[in-house]
């Protein structure tokens, strides 16, 4: 999801027009391509939707007197400025980011800005970086919206100025705009609200001038603060778990106890006897117990008698999977990712070789708000409330599950308690199960399907388990001569509609990104990939393939530098050609961390960097050991180059959060499976980071005029290898398997 897609490849996965003749979804390949072309979203960066006419019905009712020059801005006579946010807010700050860009070009006052989330409408709110589908992922929110929001804001501003010029009978170029007020000669002043009605009657200009970046007052300023801090600091922010509707019921689902298990039969008698339980219904996901609240639903579920067929439960065990994967890697073969003709010859010439095999476990996202969705079937329509991170998928699959045409389905997208990739998936699992339950109760009553922490954590959709086997030949001059690399693990993309676009010649780009392509000049590579399938659904997990490729590449770099007797930073820089931004963050992080300065005894530094989602991040970790041989990460210095920093303090926040999220996984993250059942189910067994383990994080942002790129994910990949490199320096022990809790470290 982190790569550019064309709309044609997404459309390929959509139902054929003939298939859709039954009206199941009303969303067809030809229709999609047509609407894609109509909305121009492949060209949206150049020709923003800002200038396209749109039907008021598409964006809700625009009250008379409101000024709504495009799908993103509505200004009311009472002077509120409402921005319609096309991206999903899971904490990463997209709401504030898009609003900053709109307000900048509009010259709105930050305190008058209000936001709401866009309805499902790919024609108006599509993301050209994910093939024009409406969705948030791959750290693309700011990147794909930058020019579109600028033009939307500038268009509205130009029309407000034109309205003032008409009213005051002065040339438009005699007017200035600042903080939501238009000023003219002779002390004339008008608020946006006072001009809304007049501006609404003007034609939408076809050309607008954008600001010179040196005149920015909101973009790039630390003083531009988050819009949601107050609501989220007072308990008033509304998440899916908080939705209130008349007669709303709560359901929990008794789910298969193992991947691949099937329901044979169940007895609901005792469950139905629990006070507060209203319905017990079978759905494709299991048996749903519906009640007046969460507790009776959970008690009802406990009282169910369930008989499962476990004959196809799997995988047998994650340890056995590691053994299989290592055997596959040792055997070699698979599809070729990249191969130099002289690989074998160069490897033969090597003065010495370094070999290593790495193991990475399944990881759960464990977002703070367990998965949930509210569905309400009434009067021939379906409404859902949820963390609709990919409205295009959710809309289509909800309609299909409800057996309704898409125009009878309304999605209400709410903020969510984290996601880290979990809420964007092409099964729309938590949306679809809510629709199934709403349908099964056969009453026009809204129902929230709430997963418990255990349901969420044991439900699969994990970062897959991987094995890498690497062999590097070093020449007599201590420089790498040949690079052999095999990756074994599930393809994340294969089961998704993105397969056509992101799997080329059998290679899932998201499994190999960071190994190939890489900013380093890899000598004579031979890179292969094997993608076995498993009963566990794979899913992207904050930074996707970079979670494992970054670890392997950056710890191997360190190992090679040590073998060559060179400084790890200098060794890397010598392998970087024409990569000034990548080299730049490495040097900046090293400088700010005091790379050349001695450290107190018992501490060591490690460095690592990763290019991901078009951004460059380097980190230097300062690590010591606890008395019982556990790593203690004390300080992490981060350098990030993400182009124009739109909200510098939010970039800092995403780097801090990325470090903490990555450190949790590096230290403890692991889902183990036995006979198809995950062992870990809650935070007692799936340990995550706590405040006492949070290192001091210092973030340095590279000043840049390049187009802005993502920051939600790129803070994650360098952390684990930077820590492992520091540990190797401190203890001489090289980490081959994550999490680090599997190793006891000893000072050398």
């Amino acid at each position, binding site marked *: 999801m982190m790569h550019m897609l064309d709309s044609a490849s997404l459309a390929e996965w959509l139902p054929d027009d003939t298939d859709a003749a039954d009206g199941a979804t009303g969303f067809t390949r030809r229709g999609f391509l047509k609407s894609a072309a109509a909305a121009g979203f492949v060209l949206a960066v150049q020709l923003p939707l800002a200038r396209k006419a749109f039907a008021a019905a598409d964006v809700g009712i625009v009250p008379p007197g409101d000024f709504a020059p495009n799908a993103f801005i509505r200004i009311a006579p009472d002077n509120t400025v409402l921005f319609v946010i096309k991206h999903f807010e899971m*904490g990463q700050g997209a709401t504030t980011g898009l609003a900053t860009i709109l307000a900048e070009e509009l010259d709105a006052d930050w305190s008058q800005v209000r936001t709401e989330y866009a309805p499902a409408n790919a024609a108006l709110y599509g993301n050209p970086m994910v093939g024009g589908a409406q969705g948030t992922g791959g750290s693309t929110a700011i990147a794909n919206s930058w020019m579109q929001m600028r033009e939307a804001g500038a268009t509205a501003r130009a029309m407000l100025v034109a309205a003032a010029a008409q009213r005051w009978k002065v040339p438009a170029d005699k007017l200035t705009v600042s903080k939501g007020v238009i000023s003219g000669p002779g002390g004339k002043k008008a608020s946006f609200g006072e001009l809304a009605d007049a501006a609404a009657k003007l034609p939408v200009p076809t050309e607008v001038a954008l600001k010179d970046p040196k005149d920015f007052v909101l973009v790039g300023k630390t003083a531009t603060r988050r819009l949601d801090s107050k609501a*989220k600091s007072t308990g008033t922010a509304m998440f899916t778990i908080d939705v209130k509707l008349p007669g709303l019921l709560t359901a929990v689902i008794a789910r298969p106890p193992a991947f691949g298990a099937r329901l044979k039969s169940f007895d609901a008698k005792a469950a139905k006897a629990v006070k507060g339980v209203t319905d017990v219904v079978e759905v494709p996901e299991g048996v749903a117990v519906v009640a007046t609240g969460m507790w009776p639903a959970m008690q009802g579920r406990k009282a169910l008698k369930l008989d499962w067929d476990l004959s196809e439960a799997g995988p047998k065990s994650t340890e056995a999977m590691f053994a299989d994967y290592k055997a596959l890697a040792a055997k070699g073969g698979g599809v070729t990712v990249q191969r130099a003709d002289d690989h074998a010859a160069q490897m033969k010439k090597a003065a010495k070789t370094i070999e290593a095999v790495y193991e990475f476990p399944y990881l759960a996202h464990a977002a703070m708000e367990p998965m949930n969705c509210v569905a309400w079937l009434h009067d021939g329509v379906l409404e859902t409330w949820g963390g609709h991170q990919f409205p295009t998928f959710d809309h289509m699959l909800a309609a299909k599950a409800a057996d309704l045409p898409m125009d009878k389905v309304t999605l209400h997208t709410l903020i969510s*308690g984290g996601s880290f990739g979990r809420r964007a998936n092409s099964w729309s699992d938590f949306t679809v199960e809510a629709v199934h339950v709403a349908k099964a109760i056969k009453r026009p009553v809204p129902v929230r399907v709430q997963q418990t922490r255990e349901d969420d954590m044991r439900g699969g959709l994990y970062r897959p388990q991987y094995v890498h086997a690497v062999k590097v030949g070093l020449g007599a001059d201590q420089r790498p001569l040949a690079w052999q690399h095999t990756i074994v693990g599930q393809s994340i993309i294969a089961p998704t509609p993105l397969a056509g676009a992101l799997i080329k010649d059998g290679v899932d780009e998201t499994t190999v990104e960071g190994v190939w392509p890489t900013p380093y000049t890899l000598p004579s590579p031979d890179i292969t990939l094997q993608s076995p399938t498993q009963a566990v659904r794979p899913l992207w997990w904050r930074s996707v393939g970079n979670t494992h490729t970054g670890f392997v590449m950056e710890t191997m770099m360190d190992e090679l530098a040590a073998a060559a007797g060179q400084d790890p930073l200098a060794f890397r820089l010598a392998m970087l050609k024409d990569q000034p931004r990548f080299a730049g963050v490495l040097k900046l992080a090293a400088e700010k961390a005091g790379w050349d300065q001695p450290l107190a005894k018992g501490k060591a530094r490690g460095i690592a960097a990763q290019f991901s989602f078009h951004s460059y991040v380097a980190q230097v970790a300062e690590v010591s050991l606890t008395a019982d041989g556990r790593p203690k990460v004390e300080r992490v210095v981060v350098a990030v180059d993400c182009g124009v920093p739109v909200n510098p303090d939010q970039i800092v*926040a995403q780097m801090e959060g990325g470090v903490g999220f990555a450190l949790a996984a590096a230290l403890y993250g692991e889902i183990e499976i036995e006979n198809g059942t995950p062992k870990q189910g*809650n*935070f007692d067994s799936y340990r*995550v980071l706590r405040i006492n383990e*949070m290192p001091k994080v210092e973030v340095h942002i590279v000043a840049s005029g390049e187009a802005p790129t993502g920051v939600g994910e790129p803070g994650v990949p360098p952390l684990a290898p930077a820590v492992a490199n520091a540990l190797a320096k401190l203890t001489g022990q090289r980490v081959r398997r994550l999490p680090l809790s599997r190793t006891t470290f000893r000072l050398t």
Partner: protein
Amino acid sequence: MVTFKLNGETREVDADPNTPLLWIIRDDLGLTGTKYGCGIAQCGACTVHFEGAPVRSCSLPLAAAAGKNITTIEGLQSKAAQAVQKAWISMDVVQCGYCQSGQIMSAVALLEQNARPSDADIDGAMAGNICRCATYQRIRAAIHAASAELTA
């Protein structure tokens, strides 16, 4: 029927006395600032004040609340609470925000007991509150800022 005080108001609830207070507060009494994250006293998202002390409401049965004073994020009023929320907002502590009611309840309880907490005191009081967005550095900074305001 169990009677207790919620945010200063007397409430009567007719429910299974084993029901965790969390679900009584959310589902029966309609206050949704208090969140569910784990149900087993591991994450702190459900933290409320029980006679002024922070407790995990997911693991406290309704029966235990009988006759007691319970405060949720909606009922925060103290000076310490105001200082904490002000620091949280001005420093943009939150990301997804889901854990933050619980974080704030723990931080307020800490500052009400100890207006000048050390980093170790903060670790001790806050280690029961998980933040998957890892906003911990700002949580610590905001507690120190609130402390500075309270002791100025």
